C-alpha cells in the first residue's frame, strides 16, 4: 500500500511540475514583420519559456516553464491581440 501511495504522489508531483508544449495553428499570419507581435506578446508572459513562429505551416509553438500552462482562452486572447485567429490547439506534456 505504501508503495502504491508513493507512486501516486510521485506521479502527481511529476504532472504538476511538467512543462507544456502548445502548438497553435493560426490564420492570417502571413509575414514575419507582423508575426513579431506574437513573439513579443508571448515572451512577455511569465508562463512562457520559448516561442517559435513557423509561417510556412501557420504554427506558433510555445514551450511553457515547468508547472506552467496557458489555457485556450488566454492563448486565443493573446494571439487575437497580436491580430490573428487561432483555429486549432495541440498540447503535449514534456
Amino acid at each position, binding site marked *: 500500500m505504501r508503495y502504491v501511495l508513493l507512486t501516486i504522489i510521485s506521479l502527481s508531483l511529476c504532472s504538476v511540475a511538467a512543462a507544456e508544449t502548445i502548438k497553435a495553428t493560426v490564420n*492570417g499570419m*502571413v*509575414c514575419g514583420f507582423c508575426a*513579431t507581435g506574437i513573439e513579443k506578446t508571448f515572451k512577455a508572459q511569465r508562463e512562457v519559456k520559448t516561442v517559435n513562429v513557423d*509561417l510556412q505551416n501557420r504554427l506558433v509553438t510555445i514551450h511553457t516553464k515547468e508547472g506552467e500552462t496557458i489555457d485556450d482562452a488566454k492563448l486565443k486572447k493573446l494571439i487575437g491581440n497580436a491580430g490573428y485567429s487561432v483555429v486549432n490547439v495541440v498540447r503535449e506534456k514534456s
Partner: protein
Amino acid sequence: MNTKTFLTLLFAIFAGVWAGEAKPLSYVGGTMVMQENDETGHTIALDYTFTPTEAFGLYIKQEENGKDIFMLTPELNTLLKRWNLPDGQGNIFNMSGAGVANYRGNNQPSLWTAFLADYESRRFFFSYEPRFVWDGDIEKSVWQRARIGIAPYLANYNDLNTWIMFQVDHHPAKHDHFVATPLIRFFYKTYLFEIGYSSNQHIMVNWTIQF
C-alpha cells in the same frame, strides 16, 4: 447598365486598386515609428497600439511637389474590419488626425482622414488608400494610392523578406496627377525598408521600426 455589368465593373475597380504600406497598427503594447520620403514630401508617424483595434500617435508631414505645407496632428488609427484567412489577411483601417497646418507663416486647423484596405498573403500584396485633407484656407485635397506587390521567394519568420512592388499615386491638386513608383521592400523581423524611384523623378525611401 444592368446589374451584372455593374457588379463586374465594381469588381474590376475594386480588384484593380486593392493593395499597402506598413499597417497602421501593431500588437497590443507595441510602438511603431514610420518614416516616408517620397514625391509627396516627408512624413514621420509614431504610434502606440493600445487595443487590438486602435493605435494612437503623432503624425508630422512636410509636403512638397506643390504647396510646401507643414502638418502636425495627433492621429487615431482604427481597425474597422479584419479577415484572418488560412493563406492571407485582409484589413480595412481608418486613420484620422486633427491638428495644425502651416504654410508660409499662416497657421490653420488641419483635419484629415484616410481609409486603408489591404490584402496580403505570403506571395501577393494589394492595398488601396484614399485620403482626404482639409487645411483650413490653405488647401483642401483628395489623394489616393494603390499598391501591388509580389514576393519572389517565400521567406520564413527569421529570413529576410523581399517584395517587388508597384505604387500609383493620384493627387488631382498637384502638378503630376498620376505618379507611378516601382519599389523594392525589404523586411527583417521588426525592421522594414523600402526604396523606389517615381515617374516624376523622386527617390522614395521609407522605413518602419516596431518595438
